[in-house]
């Protein structure tokens, strides 16, 4: 089963981290990713730019383009992982490995309904 692990955190708090703190966190997270990758569990990983860079498209016959972010919410989606785990229990354990390396925020696990790995890279 593929699960997405969505990382929510208060953007204002995340932006308050110093570069050194952020770099240190990324080093710890990459170590967890390396473990997951070697176990064949890790799919794409993305870190998103701040919500101030977001653009929203309202669905409908004539889609409307609106600048993000939406009205203030407490935590914002800042990034996500796709992991391959046999059960929710294991997905939770996997998310905990990542959660331990983050100072605050919430990780949400959502099973993936449709997955297309695509071909882009950066």
């Amino acid at each position: 089963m593929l699960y997405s692990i969505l990382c929510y955190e208060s953007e204002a708090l995340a932006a308050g981290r110093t570069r050194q703190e952020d770099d240190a966190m990324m080093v710890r997270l990459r170590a967890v990713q390396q473990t997951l990758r070697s176990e064949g569990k890790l799919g794409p990983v993305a870190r998103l730019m701040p919500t101030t860079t977001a653009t929203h498209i309202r669905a409908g016959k004539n889609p409307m383009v609106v600048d993000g972010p939406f009205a203030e919410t407490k935590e914002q989606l800042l990034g996500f992982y796709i992991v391959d785990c046999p059960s929710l229990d294991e997905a939770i354990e996997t998310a905990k490995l990542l959660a331990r390396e983050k100072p605050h925020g919430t990780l949400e696990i959502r099973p993936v309904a449709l997955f297309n790995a695509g071909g882009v890279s950066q």
Partner: protein
Amino acid sequence: MIDMAWIDATLTAARPQVLGALLRYFRVLDAAEDAFQEACLRALKNWPVKGPPRDPAAWLIFVGRNFALDEVRRRNKQTELPADDAILTDETEDAQTELAERLDASHYRDDILRLLFVCCHPDLPAAQQVAVALRIVSGLTVKEIARAFLVSESAMEQRITRAKARITAADVPFDTPGAPERASRLSAVSTMLYLLFNEGYSASGGDAHVRVPLCEEAIRLSRLLLRLFPSEPEIMGLSALLLIQHARAAARLDAENNIILLEDQNRGLWDRELIAEGLALVEKALRHHRPGPYQLQAAIAAVHSQAARAADTDWAEIDRLYQILETLQPSPVVTLNRAVAVAKLRGPAEALALIEPLAAKLGGYFYFFGLKGALLTQLNRPDEARTAFDHAISLANTAAEAAHIRLHLDRLQKDNESKRSA
């Protein structure tokens, strides 16, 4: 499990919203600040025991407001009130949740905008607006601000006290602003944030030429402003401009604190993450087709940031953007900057012809004489170049600026000597 670093970061992040709301309730800055201070103290006492509240900002507003109301009652009735901890019961938690739901988005936006706007009182000189904003909105201590401005703590204390007295004496605008009033507040606040950034980017005095914390604070506040007003292309432009300029911070000075000009900078030291965010914002802003000075300056910074080497810079595009900026916001400084692009495109003679008429207006401007000296050097007019550089040194704001010009003078001197010996 709640760590003190989290509480600290949360209090800092919540400050503009909470203080803004308390200012709306009490209409007096000192009262709002006292109430915020008290709410923070109670948070430090309460949160580690009871766990963090669902909505920290709403909790702080609620507790701060109650504290101040109690103070008023205490003074009016002289009656006994329940002990501090009594108000922090579960009942309060429910009440604050309810309050949180009632905090509507438009109040929240205007509260923060008002808080920023009171710091921009037109009677206050720019440096004081910035100092007061750092104290009130950012919550920096007087000591930290004094350090950033390189003045003594007592001098800064005096400056801020005086500025705050001026703000208090003025009418703080408490009505919910209409669209034109909101736009004019946004514009005043944008200018103040730009000044704050510039104070860090190109320090107006002292030894440190770049003061990173001031730049970072300006970026933090500009992002906050953009979250509140997500469809304002000029706020996108302002944020983008600050991000792209700040991305170059590590490359702008060498180990001895000497200025390194844009064309000589090690572009590998530029912060690509900040540049990417800035470019995303420029792109978003341009879709609005409502150009403004910040968007144009951001677009110019974006062109520079996209050149892998200095030689790859698209000077024609920069010249074009400066020309639009000149029509939107005519200013000798903008023309001076365009002259750099003109020199690259069409040579130093044309650039010099462009800036010579600016002499009367820019007679006290360091960069005018710096550029004039550089152009005259390229035109092989060393004596006039030396005069211009001497003039620049006398106008330098920081040691780094003066040292940079001295470098030019030394080069002229060497050229002169080698010519004589040849």
